[in-house]
């Protein structure tokens, strides 16, 4: 029996030889063409889902760049933009509580992510060679964390005993290692063909050199994803700061946002500007929110096509 290609020839698109990436690939002939009702329902649902995500963000962004007059006329949040001003951002980022909080969050995120990635990549590589001494015992020790959480109280007492209270180390060390992330990295490293690493070893390369020059360049996708996971974790964290830091001037951005949004306050030092000028307290709040969500919203789409690699699918092998 001969095999036939059951595909319609691609329709010529405006004489161009290559179909654009916007064009839909041809349907197989056995698939019935979609009905108009079906298409409408599908498109409707997807548009609804996307709007559910984007509409609230739209309100937040638009309100943050609206003038006090527009906000007063709208009676609060602004849906239709009337004007554009960056006064809220200028006030927030010209020194003071929020500027400091942004710097703290950026610093903790950068240092923490670098630290977590170094520790995790080293550990994942150290566990990735089959048959190495003790890797099974170490693996089980790490995976024990996935079964029994120590609990909030003993962890809190430990951090206190170690003297980490009121230091930024308390925001980094207790949550520095995610066993899940190590397992994902390890699974990826184990998938790299041993011929590559073995030949390097024969040529006299040590493990650190193999990791740096062969394994890491081949694992760029998964390293990008895990870096994003760690960075988002540090950027979004607020709980550890709320229990380990007493000094209000040390607080990261998320904690400042909690104070502003939940208690309807205005950042320290901006009270005068809000009372006197054309700065709206609501615009200030929304601007803080934009600052808090901007980095992740900008970065995550770049790594999007690799997200699947960050999932623990079939990653746990003894």
């Amino acid at each position, binding site marked *: 029996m001969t095999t036939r290609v059951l595909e319609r020839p691609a329709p010529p698109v405006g004489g161009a030889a290559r179909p654009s990436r916007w064009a839909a690939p041809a349907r197989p002939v056995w698939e019935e063409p979609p009905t108009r009702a079906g298409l409408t329902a599908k498109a409707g649902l997807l548009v609804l889902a996307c709007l559910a995500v*984007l509409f609230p963000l739209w309100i937040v962004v638009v309100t943050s760049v609206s003038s006090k007059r527009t906000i007063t006329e709208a009676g609060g949040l602004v849906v239709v933009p009337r004007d554009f001003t960056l006064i809220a951002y200028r006030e927030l980022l010209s020194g003071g509580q929020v500027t400091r909080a942004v710097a703290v969050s950026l610093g903790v995120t950068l240092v923490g992510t670098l630290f977590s990635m170094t520790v995790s990549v080293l550990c994942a590589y150290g566990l990735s060679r089959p048959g190495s001494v003790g890797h099974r015992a170490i693996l089980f020790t790490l995976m024990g964390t996935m079964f029994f959480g120590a609990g909030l109280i003993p962890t809190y007492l430990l951090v206190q005993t170690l003297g980490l209270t009121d230091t930024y180390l308390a925001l980094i060390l207790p949550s520095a290692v995610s066993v899940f992330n190590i397992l994902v990295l390890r699974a990826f490293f184990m998938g790299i063909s041993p011929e590559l690493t073995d030949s390097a070893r024969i040529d006299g390369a040590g493990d650190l050199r193999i990791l740096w020059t062969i394994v890491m360049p081949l694992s760029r996708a998964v390293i990008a994803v895990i870096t994003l996971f760690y960075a988002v974790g540090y950027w979004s964290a607020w709980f550890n700061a709320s229990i380990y830091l007493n000094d209000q001037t040390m607080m990261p951005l998320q904690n400042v946002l909690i104070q502003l949004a939940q208690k309807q306050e205005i950042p320290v030092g901006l009270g005068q500007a809000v009372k006197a000028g054309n700065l709206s307290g609501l615009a200030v709040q929304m601007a803080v929110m934009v600052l808090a969500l901007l980095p992740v919203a900008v970065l995550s789409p770049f790594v999007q096509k690799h997200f699947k690699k960050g999932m623990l699918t079939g990653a746990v092998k003894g």
Partner: protein
Amino acid sequence: MKTHDTTDRRPRIPLGRRLRRDRTLLLMTVPALLLVLVFHYVPILGNVVAFQDYDPYVSTNGVTAILESPWVGLAQFDRVLSDPAFWAAVENTLVFFLLQLVLFFPVPIALALLVHSLLRPRVRAFVQAVLYLPHFFSWVIVITVFQQIFGGAGIIAQTLREHGHEGFDLMTDPALFKFLVTAEGIWKDAGWGVIVFLAALAAVDHALYEAAAMDGADRWRRMWHVTLPALRPVVALLLVLRVGDALTVGFEQLLLQRDAVGPGAAEVLDTFVWWTGLRSQDFSYAAAAGLIKGIVGLALVLTANKAAHLMGEQGVYRK
């Protein structure tokens, strides 16, 4: 379990030589191992305060404070188990878990089917980017976003006020709070949940669809007989894992809203431990409550994994 592992049947190399051979690999694992030992296993030992009447002020140092605090046996556990507030937290935890299971769990599957049917690569990538986005927002942002929509100063209340209706505020309504929390969870993470199902859908052999179509199955029957069975193992696995994690229902999310709506509606086991321990400074009592949660949680995870293995799936660990 490791009897068929070929690496273990190599000619025996003396342990000393193997240690020397693998010393770099071992050293590489030391930092992570140390962090896990210090910040995970040491606190597990710290749970002994649950059997004490721990007083942090008898000493300046946590370790000596534990040594000098009086031992009370299981008295703290008796106190916890006879505390109506604890049982109210247990009840809330289970209600939140069930609501999430019924209302949240199907959403990513439905979304995945919709996204999978998108054929244009650009459109698909855009929809995915939008749906994944809220997963990367902190709970602080998610809850503040919900405040702007459903809160007393939110866009709905604002619109209603323009039409003469006052007093709309979903964020402080204890009656609807559990649904609100579930909705926040869906907004944040349902899109992210799509990834796993999309991977499963992409792995379906197209010949199955074609064969089904040749046999006269229309699109709905193909979905019923080909697509959904292909998703079954993933669904089963995720369901089992979720049950194993049943006692953990959004600690940060609920803590952030506890003040607005009151502990009656928002208190779950994790926030109960936080409140009694860190706010009321009753460390031993909170540690006992936390330990009860940890042990029941461990039993649930082990049972869930057993169930996964019985279904022929891989759980958190391999059989």
